[in-house]
């Protein structure tokens, strides 16, 4: 395993009201690696990654015990602002959710909100992030058009570009390809592999083949517990736990 830990979950228990969704989960997220979380529906994997940028605190009646760290710092400490964590830890969802604005403004928005006013800087940053998100060639002539006119795959890459513009450090992907066709899925996967050079990536996916293809580490969740975590290659060739084996060979779930 790698040594460089970017984020760390320490004895995480999480409740929706009286229902316990996560049970004593410990997990390390390594820098510049792709970590995939797999497991059947309702196993807690999405709930789990939403803790990494404090998304769950927006839901009433939830309770968290345990700690989540980024670079050794407790992300839930009172001296840290949620918006700051969400800038450092970006998120891309299952359904692409561009703002109903132009392609250009979708990316410039985050910069402006962060107080950047220099137009040249913003323009340069928009071009740079669109290139990084492998979208530039497809949209360079239509930056002023509405982002809603883009295809699903392009919208998803725009959402990724939006994270990159604000100098995020970690990108959380929650089923990023669930609503995309195989070609767009391939582009997103290729992009994830490119992005890991500069970012730390966590991806939740139902698609086990996708987890196998893109990730360096894989964690298998079941009924709120992290059953097994290890190098992707080991998980998919020689899982240690019988439940992991049963799940990845399609025998349940």
């Amino acid at each position: 395993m790698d040594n460089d830990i970017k984020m760390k979950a320490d004895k995480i228990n999480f409740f929706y009201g009286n229902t316990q969704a996560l049970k004593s989960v410990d997990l390390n997220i390594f820098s510049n690696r792709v970590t995939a979380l797999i497991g059947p529906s309702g196993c807690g994997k999405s709930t789990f990654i939403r803790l990494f940028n404090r998304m769950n605190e927006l839901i009433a009646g939830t309770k968290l015990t345990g700690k989540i760290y980024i670079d050794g710092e407790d992300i839930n400490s009172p001296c840290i602002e949620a918006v700051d964590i969400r800038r450092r830890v970006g998120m891309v969802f299952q359904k692409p959710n561009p703002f109903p604005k132009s392609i250009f403004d979708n990316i410039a928005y985050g910069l402006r909100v962060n107080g950047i006013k220099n137009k040249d800087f913003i323009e340069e940053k928009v071009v740079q992030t669109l290139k990084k998100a492998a979208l530039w060639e497809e949209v360079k002539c239509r930056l002023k058009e509405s982002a809603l006119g883009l295809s699903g795959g392009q919208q998803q890459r725009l959402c990724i570009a939006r994270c990159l513009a604000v100098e995020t450090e970690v990108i959380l992907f929650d089923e990023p390809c669930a609503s995309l066709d195989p070609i767009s899925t391939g582009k997103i996967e290729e992009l994830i592999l490119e992005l890991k050079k500069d970012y730390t990536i966590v991806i939740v996916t139902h698609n086990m083949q996708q987890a196998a293809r893109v990730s360096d580490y894989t964690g298998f969740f079941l009924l709120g517990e992290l059953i097994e975590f290890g190098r992707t290659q080991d998980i998919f060739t020689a899982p240690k736990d019988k439940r992991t084996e049963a799940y990845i060979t399609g025998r349940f779930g």
Partner: protein
Amino acid sequence: MVKHFDEELQDLNNQILKMGAFAEEAIFKSIESLRERDRNKALEVINNDKLIDELELVIDEKCLDLIARHQPMAGDLRFITTGMKINAELERIIDIAVDICQRVSEIADKPLLKPLVDIPRLASVAQGMVKMAIDSFVKRDIQTAKKIMLLDSDADNLRNAIQKELIEDYMVKDGQTAPRAVPLLLIARFLERICDHATNIAEDVIYMVEAKVVKHHPEELK
């Protein structure tokens, strides 16, 4: 996704080529050590074997990893699965080169039973076949692969001739020659086995390139 997968396939290809280079080197040195009866050269081959065993495991693991993680299809699937088999064949070839070297180190300081004629000929057939097998893999060249399969009977004939001579002209006539004849008999057998492994590689290459099974089906060669 294809781009990264292609890079990984290229990487696997390079590792198999490295194994091939080790195999060619091991055979070359084992034959040289025999010709020169040079124990040090024989020891070099014997001592290098650990490194090669490690590479065999690395290649096997890589193949398994690619299958598990990328669910390869068609030509990619054939390349990876035959890559695994070729890896094993090459490693066996190197093991046999080590066997030859062990026999050489036994006989190195004894006078030769007879001047070696057919054994060097068989050795050069074996060396040539392995070289061609690796070439056919590198160039995905089935014509070369087919040629190798035809050479295999030459190797068998040479081995039989060597065996007949050593047994009938020496061991039967004078039992005292056995300690010097048996290592030569074994070396001939080892060289012929190397040719068999080269033939297996050729069959694997034909399957990889054309998806044709010629193993146990010689009629498919036409």
